[in-house]
């Protein structure tokens, strides 16, 4: 990373490859850097002197959730425990394989452990003529009928998503929207971005087909308890930043493997000010840092969001004051700038303003990371402020039906009553597409907005490894909706402060 990226008062860290991995050491947990950078990392406190066995050691919220789920009073990072699963989610890409393994291992006539704890959400390859993709949704439907699964968000008529009353769209957003995310619970999904649900103060992580097949039959899984990295984000959020900037900032610091097999806990006044959708964006990309899960403590914002969405009781848990963290990182958010992740890695962070000479071919706003209602509201805000037309094709893929509806019904603040869709049309964006994962990971060749040629794209999605979004030589700049909209207006990677 160029040192010019950091101002002298920047309260952050260069990547800490030599980060101490012991939660029980007072060893410095970052490499000394001979620059005027305020270093506020605090090593995990020395272990409390042991006393009689009856004294309970303090735990982080992740440790507490897993302790409760495994019916243990106490556990510690590194413990391997069988946990009871509250929700298992699967979709069209991994559901058929998980079902195949379940039947092979438990028998053709076996029943799932609990028909109300399995949530099946087709979302990946929906609007395509690919026969196998369509067949995979059929497999899900057959299984759900056979097992009488309560929550199956089906789609049959691909020509018009609106005539499918049960269809939702992207699983991670639908889970939250439909009240399947509850503080203190364990949610597993066959998708790496399942960690999104950690925004609700629960343990949520991605698993593979085989593990999912195991959960289908037993409702349990063997999990190793992760140590926790703590990220304290304080200060008022500038009006040109979104939580995508925060998480790209963090991944740029700790790298794509910096949180491997760790939990990432987000606290601080900035985090407390974030909406649920913004918290979801933050937790969504912890897997891009290698994280096992991410968590935001549940608070009144969480409870208010969940009102009317779930009737099941839930019990939040919180990190103890004396809980031990592997490391603590502190950020003064008011000093941060809009950032992007350059090709071909989510940790290839750069300031947006330093990429102003990068000419782009298109902009994509969508996915579980950047296709929620507030993501589109943010883009509309930039378009409104500019009063100009976009200079490159600008694709809009709402994450869910509800988000799509919001684009056509909710007024954009300061617009005199205009909706997002009206603003998007005025500036020349493509019409909002059918809700799904869309081109985030490429998918079948006829996927809307898939990068079938080696082009340059600014995208609100979550990954930019080679081949992501379709073409092996495509170049994807990951960005916030503000930055994506600003870039669409100029045809270059653009810092949204030019318009806001």
């Amino acid at each position, binding site marked *: 990373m160029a040192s010019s990226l950091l101002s002298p008062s920047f309260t952050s860290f260069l990547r800490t490859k030599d980060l101490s991995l012991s939660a029980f050491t007072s060893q410095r947990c970052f490499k000394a850097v001979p620059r005027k950078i305020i270093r506020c990392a605090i090593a995990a406190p020395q272990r409390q002197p042991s006393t009689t066995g009856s004294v309970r050691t303090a735990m982080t919220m992740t440790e507490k959730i897993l302790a409760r789920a495994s019916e243990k009073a106490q556990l510690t990072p590194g413990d391997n425990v069988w946990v009871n699963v509250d929700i298992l989610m699967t979709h069209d890409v*991994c559901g058929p*394989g998980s079902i*195949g393994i379940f039947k092979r291992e438990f028998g053709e006539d076996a029943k799932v452990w609990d028909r109300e704890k399995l949530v099946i959400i087709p979302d990946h*390859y929906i609007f395509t003529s690919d026969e196998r993709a369509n067949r995979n949704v059929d497999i899900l439907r057959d299984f759900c009928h056979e097992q009488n699964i309560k929550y199956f968000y089906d789609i049959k008529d691909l020509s018009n998503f609106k005539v499918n009353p049960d269809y939702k769209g992207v699983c991670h957003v639908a889970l939250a929207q439909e009240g399947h995310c509850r503080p203190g619970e364990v949610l597993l999904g066959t998708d*790496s971005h399942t960690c999104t649900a950690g925004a609700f103060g629960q343990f949520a992580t991605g698993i593979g*087909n085989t593990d999912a097949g195991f959960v289908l039959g037993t409702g349990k899984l063997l999990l190793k308890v992760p140590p926790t990295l703590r990220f304290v984000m304080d200060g008022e959020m500038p009006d040109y930043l979104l939580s995508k900037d925060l998480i790209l900032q963090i991944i740029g610091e700790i790298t*794509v*493997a910096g949180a491997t097999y760790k939990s990432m806990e987000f606290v601080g006044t900035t985090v407390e000010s974030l909406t649920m959708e913004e918290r979801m964006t933050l937790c969504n990309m912890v897997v891009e840092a290698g994280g096992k899960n991410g968590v935001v403590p549940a608070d009144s914002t969480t409870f208010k969001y969940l009102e009317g969405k779930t009737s099941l009781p839930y019990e939040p848990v919180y990190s103890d004051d004396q809980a031990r963290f592997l490391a603590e990182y502190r950020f003064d958010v008011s000093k941060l700038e809009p950032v992007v992740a350059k090709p071909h890695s989510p940790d290839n962070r750069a300031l947006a303003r330093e990429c102003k000479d990068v000419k782009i071919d298109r902009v994509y706003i969508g996915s579980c990371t950047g296709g929620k209602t507030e993501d589109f509201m943010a883009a509309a805000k930039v378009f409104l402020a500019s009063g100009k037309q976009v200079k490159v094709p600008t694709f809009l893929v709402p994450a869910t039906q509800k988000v799509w509806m919001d684009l056509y019904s909710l007024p954009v603040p300061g617009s005199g009553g205009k909706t997002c869709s009206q603003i998007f049309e005025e500036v020349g964006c493509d019409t909002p597409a059918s809700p799904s994962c869309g081109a985030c*990971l490429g998918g079948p060749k006829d996927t809307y907005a898939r990068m079938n040629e080696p082009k340059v794209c600014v995208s609100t999605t979550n990954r930019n490894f080679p081949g992501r979004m379709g073409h092996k*030589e495509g170049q994807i700049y990951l960005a916030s909706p503000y930055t994506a909209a600003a870039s669409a207006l100029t045809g270059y990677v653009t810092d949204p402060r030019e318009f806001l």
Partner: protein
Amino acid sequence: MALFSSAATVLPRNLAFTKLSLSHSHTLLPRFLSFPTPKSSNPRNRVAVSLQTPRAQSAASASPSASFHGLCYVVGDNIDTDQIIPAEYLTLVPSKPDEYEKLGSYALIGLPATYATRFIEPGEIKTKYAIVIGGANFGCGSSREHAPVALGASGAAAVVAESYARIFFRNSVATGEVYPLESEGRLCEECTTGDVVTIELGESRLINHTTGKEYRLKPIGDAGPVIEAGGIFAYARKTGMIPSR
């Protein structure tokens, strides 16, 4: 893109399995690769795997005294799941035998063109490389099990990487598709694609016969009992967690 220096700290392996002593309940003949002869492609000698049988009963259930032998294919750091198996092939369902094989034919097809020597040669459906050697953070990205399955289905027996993404490692162990091993150093800078190598599990050692050098591998650790058992289902049965079939 090399994101780490040669001196990058190697993170310890983290995997959610209980430490138990390794058992010797399985034996497996050493796997040897015959080199292609002019009249046939990939005439490999390897343990036959029934399409109806989980691969867990072959590669990953190798006993500690077993070894893997063959040509190695070398890749760099942060080889993500999209490079291992691009998203357009995820419509294939790995639990269906014919689709399992097809999935294997696309293994590592997502690698950039800078990898001039391809893992699976054009026109072939199996790889001639028994061992994949990677750098840091192998298998980062998705939790899709398709990635280790594609490697296993292609004929790769083991991956030796400096470090792994959590979920790829876990999926390799849970499925038994490929045997994931961690090296003590950066073997991706020591070996070249096409080198003939042997992995001796019992000795935790990799021998590069082409260069004549030997390298230490890390013991399997937490994941050992699950690998020994042949995957998460076999382990759960062995420990009485679920009834035997």
